[in-house]
């Protein structure tokens, strides 16, 4: 299976998840989007040593995973992209920041180590949050909700159209890549002589495709205006969800809950 086929599978998988039905799936996309953005902002606002404050925020995605019935392992699969990047930046911290922040018996933990862990946890939390958004919301209704949030129509329409053709183009390139590799056994990538023509051929064909697509839009009465998927109304359930989430984030942002809990227990 080549990279494009894997990407196609990943896309299909997200579609299937979003098509499921649960309390979370049924929420209005706008509420979910806002809660997710707020969550990520709160996560990012934690300082680089505030590991324990951050840890409590794990509860929100965990709860959502359970309520929505989305399997966690798919999300961990996506970690393969986020984690190396975060690690690449964070790994240096233990070397540069050697001040001892914490002693656990004989074990001395440096600030750099803590900040590296914090960074990784941030990466994980942000990934979970946006993954949950996409896994419980279908893309068309998310686009409709973006439009409601006053993102310009041109951009939203472009997003919708591109999303539709990402699948088509990836599929075509997957087939072309397979055809190439059948005639070029043992080659891992495209050799120089085909650098231009491989993508170029498809590009020219795509321009014709775009024309035909435009014709198809025109022939069905298109003028400037795109009709988006019907919106789920922003109901009382959504208000409750958004309010509870926001309350949870903000309380945890300013109250060091983990510390307090620990103090209580140790006393």
């Amino acid at each position, binding site marked *: 299976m080549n990279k494009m086929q894997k*990407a196609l599978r*990943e*896309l299909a998988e997200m579609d299937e998840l979003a098509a499921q039905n649960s309390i979370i799936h049924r929420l209005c996309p706008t509420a979910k989007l806002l809660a*997710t*953005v707020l969550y*990520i902002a709160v996560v990012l*606002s*934690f300082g*680089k*040593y*505030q*590991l*324990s*404050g951050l*840890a*409590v925020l*794990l*509860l929100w995605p*965990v709860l959502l995973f*359970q309520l929505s019935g989305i399997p966690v392992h798919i999300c961990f699969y996506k970690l393969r992209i*986020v984690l190396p*990047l975060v690690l690449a*930046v*964070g790994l240096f*911290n233990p070397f540069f920041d050697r001040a001892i922040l*914490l002693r656990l018996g004989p074990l001395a933990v440096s600030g*750099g180590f*803590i900040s590296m862990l914090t960074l*990784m946890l*941030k990466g994980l939390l942000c*990934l979970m949050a*946006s*993954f949950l*958004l*996409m896994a419980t919301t279908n*893309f068309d209704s998310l686009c409709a909700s973006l439009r409601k949030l006053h993102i310009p129509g*041109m951009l939203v*329409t472009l997003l919708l159209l*591109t999303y*539709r053709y990402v699948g*088509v*183009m990836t599929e075509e390139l997957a087939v072309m890549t397979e055809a190439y590799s059948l005639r070029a056994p043992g080659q891992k*990538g*495209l050799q*120089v002589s085909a*650098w231009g023509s491989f*993508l*170029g051929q*498809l*590009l*020219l064909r795509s321009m014709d495709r*775009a*024309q035909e697509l*435009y014709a198809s839009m025109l022939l069905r009465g298109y003028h400037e205006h795109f009709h988006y998927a019907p919106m789920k109304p922003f109901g009382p359930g959504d208000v409750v969800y958004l309010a509870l989430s926001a309350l949870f984030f903000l309380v945890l942002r*300013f*109250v060091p809950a*983990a*510390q307090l*809990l620990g103090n209580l227990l*140790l006393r």
Partner: protein
Amino acid sequence: MHMADALLAPTVAAAMYVASGTAAGVSIHKLRKEDAPQKLPVMAVSAALVFAGQMINYTIPGTGSSGHMCGGMLLSALLGPQAGFLSMIVILTIQCLFFADGGLMALGANIWNMAFYGCFVGYYLLWRPILRSRLFKGLGVKGAQRSRIILASVAGCVLTLQLGAFSVVLETSLSGITDLPLGAFCALMQPIHLAIGLIEGLITAAVLLFVYESRPELLSGLSPAEDSLPAKRSLKATVAILAVLVLMVGGGLSLLASSNPDGLEWALFGNADAGYSENMGLDEENFGVSSAAAEKAGAVQEVTSFLPDYAFQGSDSAAGTSVSGIVGSAMVAGAAVLICLAGGFFRRRKANSHKH
């Protein structure tokens, strides 16, 4: 070069959203004025194509390794800078939402780093001036144009990737995420992206040459007639602008570094103990940092760095983590496990009740 959410402080992320949003707004305005509705499907299909095209492995001759392309320059050369920029935004958005490549908060920064430079800086500063210049006149009409396309693609990609990589460094450092000194971070990022830019440039050139051979009318910026802008910038002017740009980036870097060594932890001149500046062959004293500018930069720094390092002071104990924090976190982990067990229990019960 996709940045993850975790690498940014909310203030930096928001600032980058504002910057990218403004550029997007201006682009949309310009495209609306152009009133070319047939462009929308072309943009969508090209964006989808580049999205898929980023997954192609290009074998780099003589190395056995392979390169990729990102496509900003390619899209603006085909669609024009504004439409190219919007297409890149859409690509980055889809990558972020469906593939966790980049992040929701980091999207603004990613758009800036990967789309803005490639589409606008690369196009207006290099692509168009070079294509309309009289370089390589001796090679005949076609040969000259081919050479110009190659030069513009390579130069454009190298420049825009350097700018992009530098922005990544700057954004990460301003966010207070890494303890890696700015200079060292640059020393890591810039050379790698020189190579990446070169490869990207060559791939872009190859694709554009193919397009030029088969359907030259598809290339944007080729003929001066197509847009009314008077800006027929001479190559000399371009070189001058480039030089100023390099000076500004270099100057800004040294200013940021020297004005507030604490905020940016260790910058180019900062940590003299380690002999870092000496190693780099730079001498702080002789660099003559003007104090007014330094103060200004310091003020900017204070605003931008109020969150990460000194975040919401008092909300956590001075050093942040303590033994009680760890115990508390362990309890949170316990609670998370309980939630999972409960969820599993209810789902199983539901499944059972469906069966009966």
